[in-house]
């Protein structure tokens, strides 16, 4: 067998769409060691067509594959901001609204990766703006005038594409098998100051504006940013709230992904590290992989 052949096989395997069972996904949230409540929420779900039988003469109709092939895998992290229950309610409302939306916008999934892809991107942006409206409406209806808001990092995988919608400072990382890429940009006042040259990058971490959101679901302004990247079987997707990244560096995250044996093990090891270092905020980590099956003999 020549090296060229091996590479050809690997590259075919690399882009092969994982079956439902080949996906290794896990999510974990922890209140941390300081906060009294957990205002983070996360969700991992699968969108697929479903046949519901209204009436039939067929025996054993439920043994038929009435669940159609998956259209998309959806993952999100929402980190709520606000006093009392407001923060966690904002995160919950945002997550629920997105869930409802992805179930109903099925018609746009077929445009993924096509010339009509803008329909898909637009649908995602609309989903996020709808969550914004829902959280704002809830905030306005409460007696407590304190605004309720949340970050939202939403990932939608329509193999082999990953669409990411970002509002706030939770993060999405993609590890491509060798290097870690931070897919999202933090929407904080501190990051904005760095981007515009008003603040040196090395002073960002110490800036009082470091964690002040410039864009938030339910806040004064929500400016969703949509991006798309290609995903491969050797890749790992990671979503997290800033409760992780305030304690753990990108290099450390990359190292944990590199040595991970499962999405579950990865999430737990990263949360443990954040807790060891103080766990000053709620920590949420969602990991997703689709490792290639061991192909004996090839």
């Amino acid at each position, binding site marked *: 067998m020549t090296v060229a052949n091996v590479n050809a096989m690997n590259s075919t395997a690399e882009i092969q769409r994982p079956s439902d069972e080949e996906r290794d996904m896990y999510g974990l949230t922890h209140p941390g060691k300081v906060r009294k409540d957990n205002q983070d929420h996360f969700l991992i779900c699968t969108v697929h*067509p*479903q*046949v519901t039988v209204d*009436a039939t003469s067929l*025996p054993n109709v439920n043994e038929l594959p009435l*669940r159609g092939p998956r259209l998309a895998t959806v993952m999100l992290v929402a980190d709520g901001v606000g006093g009392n229950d407001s923060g966690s309610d904002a995160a*919950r409302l945002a997550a629920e609204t997105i869930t*409802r939306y992805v*179930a109903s916008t*099925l018609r746009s999934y077929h445009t993924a990766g096509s010339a009509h892809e803008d329909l898909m991107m637009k649908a995602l942006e609309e989903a996020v703006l709808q969550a914004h409206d829902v959280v704002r409406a809830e905030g306005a209806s409460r007696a407590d005038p304190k605004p309720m808001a949340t970050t939202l990092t939403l990932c939608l995988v329509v193999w082999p594409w990953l669409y990411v919608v970002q509002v706030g400072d939770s993060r999405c990382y993609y590890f491509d098998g060798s290097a870690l890429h931070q897919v999202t940009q933090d929407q904080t006042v501190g990051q904005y100051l760095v981007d515009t040259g008003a603040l040196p990058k090395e002073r960002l971490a110490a800036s009082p504006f470091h964690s002040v959101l410039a864009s938030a679901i339910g806040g004064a302004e929500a400016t969703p940013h949509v991006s798309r990247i290609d995903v491969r079987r050797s890749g790992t997707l990671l979503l997290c709230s800033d409760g992780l990244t305030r304690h753990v560096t990108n290099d450390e995250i990359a190292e944990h992904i590199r040595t991970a044996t499962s999405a579950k093990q990865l999430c737990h090891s990263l949360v443990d590290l954040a807790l060891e270092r103080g766990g000053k905020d709620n920590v949420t980590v969602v990991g997703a992989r689709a490792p290639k099956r061991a192909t004996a003999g090839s």
Partner: protein
Amino acid sequence: MTTTAEIRRPRDDERDLFGLTHIGKVRKENQDHFLICTVHSQVTVDATSLPHTDQLDLRGPRLATIGLVADGVGGSDSGSDASRLAAETITRFVASTLRSYHAAGSSNDDVFMKSLTDAVFEAHDVVRAEGAARGETNPMATTLTLVVAVWPWMYVVQVGDSRCYYHDGETLHQVTRDQTIAQHLVDTGALPKERLSSSPFRHVLSSAIGGEEATPQVSRIDLRRSGTGLLCSDGLTRHVTDDEIAAQIRAATSSKSLCHALLDLALERGGYDNITILAARTLLPEAKSVVG
């Protein structure tokens, strides 16, 4: 001239769908099968921190409503197995070809029609393969009348001599054409129409799922005028005329009462064959006339 206002798309619970099958009074077994189902998107939660996800509406809006009748032909269990296999194959197919639903009614309509005939040919292949595996001298086969409604269109695929009717509020239309030798003889002028009902070829299929030849015919109906759809096997139409069907539809108060009234009529007149009837109406308040 009366014009009926266009109606909006009915919600899931505004559809009145019903189906039944009866062995009849002569045959020893029922070789008919039917199915009514709804295709919609669904969110399955893999993991979450959210409480009460069971209270979230994870069922997305419907993409299509599907109805089918299959009338099996063949000795022993072959006929009912053929109709069952065809119905099952179609069910599998509609769950997995979601991507083409968006093409319904668009300029890509032919893509959707193609996927419907593909589904029917797949059923044909499955039934033929099963027949070949059994090695019977009597081939197993079935009719198949398949209706896929993707608002505002209703697509009908026809193989054999089960039927699809559509009553538009005033008139009954036979949407499908019987694929029988006798009908073919009438169409080509070899047999006078008035002698069709007494022809020995009246029930000999010229096209059948699992048979020598399957030539699916696709047609399309606009659903924006309120109406009633009816599917049936020839166990109904050998006893009940089109005028009688139209009268029953006009008098019906529900899909269920309509199906039972038509069934009773066929049984009263001898019930020589298995009888299968499916009906679909809308319950929209603005859809007056026959569909209430």
